[in-house]
């Protein structure tokens, strides 16, 4: 994999030809001056009064709902950036208005959560709009595909939602930075909480979506729960997007498990939980969702979610703990009329942190921005102080463990979860090389 990335980049060096390529190789790292070489969409994309951000996000298909949430996060962030809103200036202190004084414009294209369409959108934004930044994803397949595009085209890319270990693991690239945590982290965070609250030596039944992400989370959960003496009663592997889970759920119902661990995401999670309830599983087994889907509680209803353990990036009641969360929730609700889900938070934070990196780099020259990211200073966020890890471009950030509230305990219509723990990211995140990350070159 790394080898091919290397080859790709050497190829580019040849293409860029005499002028640009020569400067790049002759003067490595001396690019603070005005004679920075052309790379990716630099300087074409930032030579005017505005810069363009290309957003590719699922607006149709199974992941359309979280997709729209992420998109709204982006929209709010762009609005705040252009207005120099106080909230964004808490995250990116050097921001005044716009980014390096340039107003931010954007374009949105539907990816349908299909990596091919995502790459198509990304390529178009780069060649057509000279985008300085590509962002958006709900599936890790999209994120991984766009990672590789970003590295090839030398344009920075920021995933939206991407829970696979691989995004900052074996498929990591120099040009991509991830805000949200991932499967392995979620498992590491939620497993001890479950053992603590539910007890030791329990039997678990897994419903595993049949793709890489599903299998890795399944393995991680088994591994971390083993510490509490938990065993696996059954693991039901179901195809992605299966409308009817009855045969899998029957097997789970007959397995004699104590806990039902549902690894599905998006609409699949909604469908399988609703059907699990029909089969009487939720009454007998405790449900756990190791990687929570935005709007899951709203879609399946508070009754089903009561007592459910879930790990998530952000929940709006964190506003009681973090001042930035309070401002973010208020601003978002004012603009869009509902409480933001964690997808919106991820979208907002990604753009805000990017603005911060650009401001610190004082340039749109991508290698400088990357260096600013990799410097890894502490950044204020909606979930407290966080920082990027230079070695794999993963944000070190806490994992929120929440539990569904009983309907009677809910203070408002949106008050679905109580936050059990905010597990600090440091120590939770695996070593940067645990999943074989090799970032590749910046130029």
């Amino acid at each position, binding site marked *: 994999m790394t080898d091919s990335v290397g080859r790709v980049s050497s190829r580019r060096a040849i293409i860029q030809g005499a002028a640009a390529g020569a400067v790049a190789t002759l003067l490595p790292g001396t690019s603070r001056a005005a004679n920075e070489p052309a790379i990716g969409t630099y300087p074409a994309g930032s030579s005017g009064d505005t810069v363009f951000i290309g957003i590719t996000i699922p*607006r*149709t*298909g*199974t992941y*359309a*709902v979280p997709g*729209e949430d992420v998109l709204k996060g982006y929209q709010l962030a762009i609005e705040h950036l252009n207005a120099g809103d106080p909230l964004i200036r808490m995250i990116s202190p050097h921001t005044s208005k716009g980014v390096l004084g340039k107003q931010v414009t954007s374009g949105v294209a539907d990816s349908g959560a299909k990596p091919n369409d995502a790459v198509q959108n990304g390529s178009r934004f780069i060649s057509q709009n000279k985008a300085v930044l590509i962002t958006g994803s709900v599936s890790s397949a999209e994120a991984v595909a766009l990672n590789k595009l970003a590295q090839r085209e030398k344009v920075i890319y920021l995933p939206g939602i991407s829970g696979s270990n691989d995004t900052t693991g074996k498929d990591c690239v120099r040009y991509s930075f991830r805000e949200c945590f991932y499967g392995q982290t979620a498992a590491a965070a939620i497993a001890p909480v479950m053992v603590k609250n539910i007890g030791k030596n329990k039997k678990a039944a897994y419903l595993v979506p*049949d793709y890489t992400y599903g299998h890795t989370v399944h393995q991680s959960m088994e591994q971390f729960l083993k510490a509490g003496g938990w065993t696996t009663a*059954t693991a*039901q*592997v*179901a*195809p992605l*997007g*299966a*409308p*009817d889970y*009855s*045969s*899998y759920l*029957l*097997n789970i*119902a*007959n*397995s004699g498990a104590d806990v039902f661990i549902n690894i599905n995401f998006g*609409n699949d999670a*909604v*469908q399988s939980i*609703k*059907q699990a309830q*029909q*089969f*009487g599983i939720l009454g007998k087994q405790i449900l756990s969702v190791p990687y929570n889907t935005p*709007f899951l509680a709203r*879609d399946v209803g508070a009754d089903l979610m009561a007592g459910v353990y879930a790990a998530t990036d952000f929940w709006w009641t964190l506003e009681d703990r973090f001042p930035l969360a309070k401002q973010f929730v208020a601003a978002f609700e004012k603009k869009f009329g509902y409480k933001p889900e964690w997808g919106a938070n991820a979208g907002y934070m990604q753009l805000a942190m990017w603005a911060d990196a650009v401001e610190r780099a004082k340039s749109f020259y991508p290698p400088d921005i990357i260096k600013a990211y990799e410097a890894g200073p502490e950044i204020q966020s909606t979930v407290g102080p966080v920082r990027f890890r230079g070695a794999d471009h993963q944000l070190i950030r806490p994992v929120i463990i929440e539990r569904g509230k009983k309907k009677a305990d809910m203070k408002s219509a949106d008050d679905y979860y109580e936050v059990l723990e905010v597990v600090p990211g440091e120590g939770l995140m695996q070593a940067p090389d645990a999943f074989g990350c090799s970032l590749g070159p910046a130029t």
Partner: protein
Amino acid sequence: MLSWPNFFSQFFNGLALGALLALISSGLTIIYGTLGVLNLAHGAMFMLGGYAGFVAWQHTGSFALAVLAGSLFMVVVGVLIERVVIRNFYRRPHEDQILVTFGIGIVLVELVRLGFGSDTVSIQPPAWAMGVTPLGFLIYPTYRIVVLGIAAAALLVLYFVLYRTRIGMIVRAGIEDSGMVDILGINVNHVFMLVFGIGAMAAGFAGIVNAPVVALTPDAGDTILVETFVVVVIGGVGSFPGAVLGGLIAGEILSLTSMVDPSYSEVMLFAVMTLVLVLRPQGLLGQQDRA
């Protein structure tokens, strides 16, 4: 997960799945048998029926009314589509018919997405059908038992209509020999319109009945359409009994194989289809000279 209780559970579940598949497939097969049109919009009609039922249920809160209103709506939609579009395609090649219904399917799905967004919506089953029923060897969702009953009843009604009524005779005569209907001096136009309406209703009805089981999305018809194809290929295109048999077989395959390795259930379904094609290309109950 091989155990006798689980086997019986899965066998029963296969029946429930199969009955529903049989109902949807019979709509497809009746339309093809009579009109000679393969309706690729059938999956979309399944989905649209669900949404129509959902709207009715939201306004009335009554499940029965939702089923009734949704079904009627689908008859109207079916008749409209037949009148406006399909009618002009009887004399055109099969391929054109497939293409136009494929296009209609896309349009229906995207219209629903425009109207309802991509969120899932679901219908609550009637209160008496909620909860679970112990069946001795297993606990089974009450509503799914009801679905099995409804689907079986609907299939019986279809059987009665097809085999015991005048319109059914005409439809079956059309399946046997499309020239025959002309000779009998029957107004084929009206029959075709009605059949397309009934076929659309069968899909839509199944969509409503299934809506409390599987929450609706605009893309809900996609998987169903492929499964329906497999069912009719196994059973024999154009054969009503074939659709019922094929549906039950498909339901049992999906259910029973999940005991061994659930991730291969779908593939087993296709493997059986391939086997049927090799051994009996016209389908289990299909006629030799069709298609």
